[in-house]
């Protein structure tokens, strides 16, 4: 081990009883900056990831939509399923309904699911919190948790369903509702979806919306590892002219752009925290250089070259950077790991867990850290710490041994 490496290590982590204040302060400040970056980027990345997960888990990665409705859909589904990269496709019908239970009305979004193929795209049974998916037949519905709660419907109760079609049919004076039985409750953990959705069979939805053999769209699940955009492109080549395939990213393009912009801004702003930590390291190293002026002179007298003396101090900046970044990585990832406990602890004191959930759409704080983000953070922290070591190093190297030895 070259002497400057050895001495740098010894000055950072002295043996014996000397507590390395300088090292601890610099390392902690770098670690805090890095941890902060990881936590913030992790949670922001989590929102994007959560949205993706929610969409994919409920609708698949790609949605086929048409200007009106899609006819002859069995054939279209078969052609989509033949496209390379497609794992499964399931047609659906959707629209607004009015439901009434014990004179209480509500206006949920209806999703009519093709029970034969929905399993190829979405594993709905994972999200059933009460009742059962198997019981869903053409006279039954499953309610989202929020809807079931607001109506106060128990499993097994009947509710009345009105469709816009009934209003359009003005010939009969009395509008007769459709009576269906509630056989289950679904909870996706996404506030928007869980608030007010009613799930029924495709056949019932077609009947309620007078679709006679048409569907509103098709959900597509792709094979793992395939690119949404590329598969969507390929699907477009087999679709009828008025239908188009959208990847989930297309559907949320604006949202994702804003999120990405916010994330970049946050990275930029929080990098200043790391920069400040680097300045702190630099000022502490400068103090060290001044304090050690006479020893630097001695090293010169012992035959050390200027370059080696510079390296000795620069390496201390690097050392602070390496240890601080590693500690920050550990701290940041740990905080991300226990983030929900932290949020719970905070909201227990300040209140407002429900508000938080409502505001952020998710009942749990999501987290998703990309390797690319980590690489950026780690590189930036190491780079800044190294730069922080360079200025003190240059000052140390410029000291002349005689003058350094003479200094008081």
């Amino acid at each position, binding site marked *: 081990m070259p*002497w400057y490496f050895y001495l740098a290590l*010894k000055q950072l982590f*002295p043996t014996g009883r000397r507590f390395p204040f300088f090292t601890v302060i610099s390392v902690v400040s770098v670690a805090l900056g890095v941890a902060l970056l990881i936590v913030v980027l992790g949670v922001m990345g989590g929102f994007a990831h959560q949205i993706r997960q929610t969409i994919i888990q409920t609708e698949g990665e790609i949605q086929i939509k048409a200007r009106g409705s899609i006819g002859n859909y069995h054939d279209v589904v078969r052609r989509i399923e033949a496209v390379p990269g497609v794992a499964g496709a399931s047609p659906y019908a959707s629209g607004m309904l009015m439901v009434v239970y014990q004179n209480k009305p509500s206006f949920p979004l209806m999703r009519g699911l093709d029970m034969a193929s929905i399993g190829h795209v979405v594993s709905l049974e994972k999200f059933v919190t009460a009742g059962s998916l198997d019981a869903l037949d053409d006279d039954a519905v499953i309610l989202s948790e929020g809807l079931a709660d607001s109506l106060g419907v128990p499993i097994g109760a009947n509710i009345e369903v009105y469709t816009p079609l009934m209003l359009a049919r003005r010939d009969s004076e009395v509008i007769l509702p459709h009576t269906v039985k509630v056989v289950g409750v679904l909870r996706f953990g996404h506030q928007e979806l869980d608030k007010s959705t009613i799930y029924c069979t495709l056949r019932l939805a077609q009947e309620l919306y007078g679709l006679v053999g048409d569907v509103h769209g098709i959900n597509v699940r792709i094979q793992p590892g395939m690119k949404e955009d590329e598969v969507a492109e390929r699907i477009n080549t087999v679709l009828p002219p008025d239908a188009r395939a959208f990847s989930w990213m297309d559907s949320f393009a604006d949202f994702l752009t804003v999120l990405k912009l916010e994330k970049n801004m946050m990275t930029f702003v929080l990098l200043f925290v790391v920069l400040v930590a680097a300045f702190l390291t630099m000022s502490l190293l400068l103090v060290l250089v001044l304090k050690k002026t006479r020893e630097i002179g*001695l090293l010169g*007298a*012992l035959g050390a*070259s200027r370059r080696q003396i510079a390296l000795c101090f620069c390496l201390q900046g690097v050392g602070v950077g390496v240890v601080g970044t590693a500690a920050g990585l550990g701290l940041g990832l740990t905080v991300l790991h226990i983030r929900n406990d932290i949020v719970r602890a905070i909201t227990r004191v300040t209140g407002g867990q429900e508000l938080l959930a409502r505001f952020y759409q998710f009942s749990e704080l999501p987290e998703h850290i990309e390797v690319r983000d980590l690489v950026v953070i780690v590189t930036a922290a190491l780079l800044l710490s190294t730069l922080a070591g360079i200025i003190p190093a240059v000052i140390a190297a410029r000291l002349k041994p005689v003058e350094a*030895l003479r200094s008081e």
Partner: protein
Amino acid sequence: MSDAIISARGLTKTFLSGDRRIEVLRGVDLEVGAGETVAIRGESGSGKSTLLNLLAGLDTPDAGTLTWAGSADTGAKRRATYLGIVFQSFYLIPELDALQNVLMAARILKGPGATELARAKELLARVGLAERARHLPAQLSGGERQRVAVARALMNAPRLILADEPTGNLDEQTGGAIIELLLGLSAETQTTLVLVTHNAAHAANCSRQLMLHAGRFG
């Protein structure tokens, strides 16, 4: 060329302090042969330290020539092996224990191996600090620190030791012990010694005494 361990001809050094010129050295000639012990005395401010720094190659003279064993190479690399320096202040590195401070001299040349470690331990034992090898400078007395510094100066088996008032920060008795040690070690190891001192008794123990006055030996 001479086979002198160190040879200086017409060394001059002038300092500018503000608009005052201080002519410290005005043509110093010095030749020290192998095995000699030379004491340099002089009033405070007469330029003894300035001269020693020039001899050590730590500073450059305004005029004059300096050779070590006939060679004008007085660069950092050669200094590390050719000479050992002992200062008035001990300049030990506070983060390193006594043994590592001694080893530092070898470390700067190359990564120290078993030979160097053994030599450092041996030198510490020779200066009477075998039991204190693992102690940090802060745990040692002034005299003990200076002994570590002496061991460090000898680490790379130099031909020449330059000592600038090595007893200046020590009491009479401790200082005497250090001078004895330096003289004893240089005799044992055939090392040449140039010793700057105020103390007439210490100087009297050397084989030659020089007096620096008005920038010259006179």
